[in-house]
């Protein structure tokens, strides 16, 4: 079992290489394709996140957060989204679509564990790096403006938070997306709602929204873990040891829950299958 796991893990970089090559071939078809995908990707991410910055600029900050701090928050939100886009594209981040459309069957047919497909199928480092680069630019500019004391420790913490936030985003998507096992048509687009919800709420500082809502935004819709809580630590607004650990711990909890719920859904799917995919490729 452990040997199989090691073998699959060792195979992942090769698969990423293959998918990266296919992605490069696809985007290198022409300047129009390359430009439009890059442009659309960044515009979409900015469109859903920029309004927090616009409001901060208009009102000279939001609550206790200055405009530059809000810019950092926005940059981190974009960076996390960009990292997930980069590695889990092609609806790997929207499992309700894959399940709802019956396309999960394609993944089950491939002679490799499902988790390997999930971890590799959506790796698109060339066509889907626009948001990541945009987020990097915003982060660098805001960090300069805030004169943050960047050190190796700070960068390690930043990396830990990006990985944790990405894991929380994916777990949230798989938790809700598993509903498509039960209702393929009704829940096919539920991940569009969950994604939009996270996208719109994550670039906002949640200080002051009220205890009840804050709890909801750290549990039912964990938008607070994606940029707000990590930014509080990275910007030095929260130096408590608990503050430091909340996001990685939440990632562990959400990931465990997602695995359990997805496996339950998969067990149900094994009995029912999907009736939505026709031989010629159209959905019913």
């Amino acid at each position, binding site marked *: 079992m452990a040997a199989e796991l090691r073998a699959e893990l060792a195979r992942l970089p090769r698969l990423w290489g293959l998918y990266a090559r296919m992605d490069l071939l696809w985007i290198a078809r022409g300047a*129009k394709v390359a430009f*439009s*995908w890059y*442009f*659309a990707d960044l*515009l*979409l991410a*900015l*469109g*859903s996140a*920029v*309004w927090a910055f*616009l*409001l901060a*600029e*208009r*009102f*000279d900050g*939001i*609550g206790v957060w200055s405009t530059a701090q809000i810019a950092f928050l926005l940059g981190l939100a974009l960076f996390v989204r960009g990292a997930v886009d980069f590695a889990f594209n092609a609806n790997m981040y929207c499992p309700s679509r894959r399940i709802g*459309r019956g396309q999960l069957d394609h993944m089950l047919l491939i002679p490799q564990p499902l988790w390997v497909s999930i971890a590799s199928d959506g790796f698109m480092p060339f066509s889907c790096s626009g948001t990541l680069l945009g987020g990097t630019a915003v982060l660098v500019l805001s960090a300069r403006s805030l004169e943050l004391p960047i050190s190796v420790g700070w960068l390690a913490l930043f990396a830990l938070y990006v990985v944790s936030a990405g894991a929380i985003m994916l777990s949230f998507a798989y938790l*809700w997306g598993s*509903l498509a096992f*039960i*209702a*393929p*048509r*009704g*829940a096919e*687009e*539920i991940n569009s*709602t*969950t994604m*939009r*919800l996270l996208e*719109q*709420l994550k670039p*906002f*500082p949640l*200080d*002051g*929204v*009220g205890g009840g*809502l804050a709890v*909801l*935004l750290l549990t*039912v*819709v964990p938008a607070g873990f994606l940029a707000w809580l990590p930014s509080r630590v990275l910007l030095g607004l929260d130096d408590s040891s608990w503050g430091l650990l909340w996001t990685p711990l939440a990632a562990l909890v959400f990931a465990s829950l997602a695995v359990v719920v997805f496996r339950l859904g998969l067990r149900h799917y094994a009995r029912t299958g999907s009736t939505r995919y026709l031989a*010629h*490729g*159209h*959905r019913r």
Partner: protein
Amino acid sequence: MVLALRQVIATARLAALGSVLESPVFLLDYLLRLLRVAVLLALWRVVLGAEGAASPVALGTVLTYALLAEVFGDQLSVRTTIANAFWQGSIAQHFLRPMLLVPQFASEMLGGWLVNFALFSLPLLLAASLFGVDPQPASGTSALLFAASLSLAICVGLAFDFIVAALTVALEQPVWLMQWVSQAVAVVLSGAVIPLALLPWGLGSVLEWLPFASLAWAPLAIYTGIGEAPRLIALQVAWACVLWPLAGWLWRANREKVVGFGG
């Protein structure tokens, strides 16, 4: 005329029942949207402070604006199923139906609206006071003008949707890419999320003249009394007069280039 109306009603009914009859799971989608409304309203209170003193628009008005934007979300961000039809390849079937293309897609959209309105918009409007929001219009006249402005917003939105569809074909771009770009642009520029009057650097007064403002800002500003109704409605009429001929021309010029391989 009666036949056309029956066709519209039948298509809308089919579209409405499509996803509702399978399972009550779709109701969870409304719960998530409800949570989003609660959070957005709370965020506005944080942004503007308890009194909203720094804002040119009173906090209560902004809250009404934000709530109305959610209640009429479908109508302020018009989206037919034409992109799905391209993507699934079912556009060919649409061409074969004994009904004009625009009424077909408008009817399908209407079906989805009816379900959303009954299960989300209406309950949200009725529960506005629970969120601490007064949903009443600025005046009776504002309410009447809002109805006219909302109709024009839908008209402009439909034209936009067909322009985007025609451009998707003309530029040979992926369906979703064009949809994403148009939505991302519209969300920021239409005032659907932030009232244009609250944008920095005087952006709002410039954006008001663009067609995107006719989609959301115009009806919402009229309802809440923060916009100049005659000018906003005149702009909506002007943009409808410009965009529909453009949509018709673009579509006629490109419809025969439509190629579908299925979804």
